Each structure stands twice: as structure tokens, then as C-alpha cells.
């Protein structure tokens, strides 16, 4: 059975790039377009890994990560935070919110796939 990855991303093109990338890599993909939906989808589908954008309408990616990590059944699920600004401090914020890893935009799809495979091997 294919591993399921939840993509929380409001921007359609980014969503599609990740979807195409991950599908081609053999993963099942679930999508959410904002923080609230992301938290709901995580609770409902219990994905094996979550790619979480930071800048989201409503609650941001850090807050969504905190809420998901607060669920007992999701504590072991890796969350990779995708930051918009490649600036200092973002990595700390990502880890502080409970994220397991982070990728800065613009990310290389190739590298992202490697990272995801690393977690789900």
C-alpha cells in the first residue's frame, strides 16, 4: 500500500508541482488549501507525512503544525515545513512549532523528493 502524503498549500501551482512530483514518486497525495482544512485532513486521513506551507489563509503553517502535533495519534508523523522566506530564524520557528524538518522555497523538486523518501523509507 502506498504511503499517503498530505500537502497543505494554498497556492495552486505549488500544490500541483508537489502533487505531480510525489505521485510520480509513487506516493498517494491528499491536499488541503488552508491551515484549518489541513488540521482536519490530518485528523481524518492520518497521512504518513505532511508538507506544510507557512503562509496560509487563516491560521498559518506553524499554528497548524502545533495543532496537528497536539493530536496524540499524529505525534510520530513527520511534518516538513515549507518556508517562503529563506531567512534566518525560519528554521528555528519551524522546529519550535513541532516541525521535523523544513525546506525553503524555492525548493528543488528533486531534493524535496529525496528528503521525503528519507523519512518514509
Amino acid at each position: 500500500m502506498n504511503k499517503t502524503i498530505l500537502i497543505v498549500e494554498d497556492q495552486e501551482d505549488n500544490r500541483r508541482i508537489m502533487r505531480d512530483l510525489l505521485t510520480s514518486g509513487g506516493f498517494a497525495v491528499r491536499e488541503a488549501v488552508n491551515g484549518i482544512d489541513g488540521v482536519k485532513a490530518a485528523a481524518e486521513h492520518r497521512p504518513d507525512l505532511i508538507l506544510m506551507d507557512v503562509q496560509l489563509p487563516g491560521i498559518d503553517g506553524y499554528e497548524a503544525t502545533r495543532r496537528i502535533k497536539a493530536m496524540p495519534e499524529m505525534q510520530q508523523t513527520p511534518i516538513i515545513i515549507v518556508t517562503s522566506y529563506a531567512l534566518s530564524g525560519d528554521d528555528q520557528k519551524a522546529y519550535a512549532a513541532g516541525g521535523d524538518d523544513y525546506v525553503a522555497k524555492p525548493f528543488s523538486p528533486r531534493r524535496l523528493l529525496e528528503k521525503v523518501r528519507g523519512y518514509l523509507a
Partner: protein
Amino acid sequence: MRHPDRSNPDKKMASISRRFSYGLIGVATLLLTTFAAVAIFLNIQRSERELMSRLDNAIRLAQTSLPTPIWNLDRKIIRDFVEALFLEDAVVYTRITTGREIMAFKVRGQSLVANLTADAVLPAGIEAEFLIKSAPIRFEGNPIGEIQIVLSRKSLREKTRRQIYGIIALAFLLIAAIWITSIIITRRYIALPLLMLQQSASRIAYGDLDTFVDLSGGGEIGSLAQNLDAMRGSIKRLFEALRQSKAELEDHSRMLEQNVADRTRELAQTVEELHALVEVSRTVSSTLDIETVLARIVRHAVQLSKTDAGTLYEVDLAEQVFTPRINYGLSDAYIEVLRRAGPRPGDESAVSRALMKREPFQIPDLSKSTTYPLNHVKAAGYRALLAVPLMRDKRLIGGLVVRRKKPGVFESPVIELLQAFAAQSVIAIDNARLFREIEAKGRELARANRHKSEFLANMSHELRTPLNAILGYTELILDEIYGAVPDKIGEILERLEHNGRHLLNLINDVLDLSKIEAGQLELALDDYAMADVVHSVVTAVEGLAAEKNLPLTVTMPASLSPGRGDSQRIAQVLMNLLGNAVKFTDSGHIDVNVEESGGQFTVAVSDTGCGLAAADREHIFNEFHQVDGSSTREKGGTGLGLAIAKRIVEMHGGQIGVDSIAGEGSTFRFSVPVRVAEQGGPG
């Protein structure tokens, strides 16, 4: 100090006369004793001679008177003769013998010979006490008898003793008389005048120069007294001269003291004024709260001009109003009166006149002014007014008025003082206005700058989002996720990706810089190892260097202190320098040198590239500056890298610089503290 002789003048006097008397008595005693001794000796000799002659006379008398009676054996006459002899006190023994027969014999009692019998022989050894003489009595040349007479020396000795006593008594009497006389004489003629002289000298010594020295004495003492009196006169004249000089000196000194006191007072006043002015100007330059400054100015103006109240008016010539801006020494009610019915431009009030004349104007006595319009000022008890105009660049901006309840002219120092305060007020008002303007400008600028930075940050984000999509899709296509890609298209896609990345770098740099400028960039301080930072950066550029066939060497101490700072940002700086080195070097080599000293890491990147001209070295760290436009395009730089690197290094509290010779190469060097202190955030 007391004069030693003054303590007991009698003693002194006694000592003089006594010494004199002792001398005199000594001499007199010696003389008298000698005289007495000689007299006594002579007297004794004379008595002896007298006694002897008396004895001789008695013998001769007997030799003359007795031959006949003896011849006649007239015993009665002989006895009478013996009795007659005994009338003489000194006769103690008489014996008249004729052959064997004793004709007459008599001894006087109470003597050594008294117990002798008539026929006894005179004992031997009595000659010391008695004078003994025997003589024959002759009748017609034939001895018929003998007479022996003994005279006692006793009575003679008594007499002599009495005489000696008399002489001694006389000598004593004489000595006493001489003594007393000498004492009287020395006292009267030597000691007393000397004592008086001494007392005069003492008086002079103790400063009594007015009592004349007694000149009654004559002789040496008299001339001594004259000299002393002359000396007293000289000293007195000297003293008077001295006293006069002293008095003059004291007068001078008093005058001087008065002058000093006056000057001191003036100086104190001046100092106080200066102090106030300094305080005011310090307040003017340090306090931008215009109300505080002006209140202080008005207060000092009133206090230092010794007036009772003051007001600083603002004038609006267009509106024809004076506004009492700052008041001192006035009640709120009176300030309200001033506000409603105060002076107006063009009227006869002091402030109005001062502004019209553009110079200080005073009314020394309001009660004598018929034209003064403000009755409430008079009613409040003010009698004298002084007003000075406040002018900025010959433009009237207000007036400063002080009011005094005591009438009188304001002297020029007070007027000058008030003018100084007026000038300070103008500066204060100007400063406040300038500050308000600058503050407004500053706020405007800050706002504009923030807008700019925010705009840039937002724009770069907005630009990046679609760019991310373009790059993402390009990579996915190139990775043939959407199917096989013909070589030709693949080649174009790679160029598309390359340009896209350049654009992205530009946008990232702009974003970084704008965040730094907007103060939004904060250093994420953490512990790091400089060796790791250097290795990671070198690893990242090694490929590029190898492609251009440029050897890249790293020189670094085996151990470096653990660093604290924003390692990602430090890596960004090094990446920039190393990237540039590779970019601008076509042949030769690139060296990275890391050192640690004095609590600083220094990282130098040397290349053998085109180098920099001196003019470029100054601007190389400015935004969007590159050696020339063409190289920017060729080398794909953004022109922001060094500007960002400089800011990052400075945020760490470090420095960045470059040494370069055009055509030979460059060495970029930056240093950062090994341990960056917390809150080393952006300035």
C-alpha cells in the same frame, strides 16, 4: 614681657646704694680700725710714759722732800708724805727705809702686793702688772734711806680700756654715720635719679612716650636723662609717623576692601546672570520642550532684573494681536485679564512701543504716563515697565516685558540682560520650530523608508511565488515526470532554469537587503564551528572552481575556538566572497585563509582575478555597484551581494574590506567577533 627690674625698683635702688655703702663702710672701717689701733697703741705708750713719769716725779718728790724728815726722823711728815703719795690711785705700795729701819710702809688693798708685810721682799715676776722703782734718798750727798714705790698698772689699764672702748664706740658711731650718710647720698643723688631714669626708660619701653623724662638731675645722670628724653622724642616722632602710615594704610585697606566687596558683588551678579544665561542656553539646546525653556527664560529674566512679573508675548501682526505665551509672577486671574484686555499692536503699551521701535522701551513711572492704555497694570500696582522685542531675521515674533512695583529707570545692564534673554527666547522658539520640522521630516522619511522596505519585501515575495512555479515545473519537465523530453527542448529548458535562478537570486538579495534596511532582519545567534562553516561553503563552490580549473586551497589553524553568531549568515558572506572570487577569476588560484586572534575570526579570500581599481574599492560595498555593467551581465552577479555581506558582518560587530591591485587580483577580508554578544541585532 615684663621688665625684670621694673618688678622691684626698691631692690634695684637698695642694691645700688647698698653696694656703694658697703664699699664706703669697708674703707671707713679699715681706716677707723687702723686709726683706733694706732690711737690705742699710742695711748697705752703715753699712759706707760705718764705712769713712769708720775713714778719718777714721786721718786724725785721723795728725794727732794724726804731727806730732811728722814734725817730728823720726823715720822709724821714721812707718813703724811706717804699718805699724799697714795692720793694717786695708781700707787699701791710705798716703803721708805733707812738702813734697817722701815720708816713708812703702806699698801693699798685689793692688789697682789696688799698682803705684803713691811719687811717682805717684793715677789719676783710682778713687773708685768706693776711698775716698781726704788731710789736712794740722799742728805747732803750721802744716802740715808731708800724709797720703793710700786705703781699698779691696773687703774691705768682700766683707763686705757675705757679709752679703747671710747675709741671703738666712736669708730662705730663714725661708721654708722658714714653708712647712713652714704645711703642718703647715694639714694638722693645716684639711685633715685637712676631709678627715675630707669622708670622713664621702662615707660618708653612700654610705649608711654608722652611723659617727659625728669631733667632736674645734673651731671652725667642729667645728660643721660637728656639723651633719654631726646630718644623718647625721636621714638615718639617715629611712632607718630608710623601710626599715621598705619592709619593711612588702614584707610587704603578699608577702601580696597570696599572696592573688592563692590567688585565681588558685581561679579556675583554677573556670574549669576551668566549662570542663568548658560543654564538657559543649555536648556535651549537640550530641552526641546519650548514651554519649559521659555518659562525658565522668563523666570530668570524677572529674577535677575529684580522685577516682580514678566510676560513673553507672541505677536501676530496680521491678526493684530499679542498673545501672552509665558507668564511669571502673575496670578491665573490676571493672566486671563491680560489675555482678554492685554496690549495690542500699535497701542501705547510698552511691548507695542518696543516692537514699533524695534528696540528696548521702558516706562520708568507709570503714574506719570498719561498715554499708557492698560489701567489694570497700574491697578495691579506695577509702576515701571521694560519691554524688549523678539526678532528673528528682522522679523518681529514677539516681546518680553518685565514689570516692577517700584518706579525707577532700568539701567543699561538690565536692558542688555533682558535683550540677551530675548535673544535666547528667539533661539529657543527657532530651535523648537526647527525641531518640529525635522521631527516631522524624520517621521515622514522613516515612514517612506518603511513603506519602501515593506514594498520591496512584499514585491519580492510576490515575484517569487510565480517564479517558484516556473522553476518547479521546469525541473519536473526536465526530470521527465511529464514524459520524455527531446534533447533540443531539454537544452532550452535548462537555459530557462538558469535564467530563472538568476532572477530568483536577484529577488532574494533585494529581499535580504530590504529586510536589513527595514530592520526586520535579526541575527539568529547560535554556537557554531568556523571550520564547519568554511568547509560547507568551500564544498558548495568547489565544483564551480574545478569547472574553471582554479585550484582552491584552504589554510586554517587545526583548532579554532567555538564561535557564537549567525552561522548561516556568516556562511552567506563567505559564499558571496568565494562565489565572486570564482566568478571573476579566469586563471590562477583561489585561497581561503582563516585566522583567530584577539577574539576575532578573520577570513580572507584571495584570488588572481581582474582586481579592482582604487576608485572601485571605495564603492564596491555599495548596493548595485559593480566594476562595470557588462561584467554584471556576463558574470551573473546581482550587485547586492557585497552590500548584504557588509551589513551582515557589521551586524555581527565586525568589519569587511578589500585589498586589490587592478589586473593582479583581490583579497577580500572580513572579521567577526568569535563570540557575538546577545542583542547584537540590527541598528
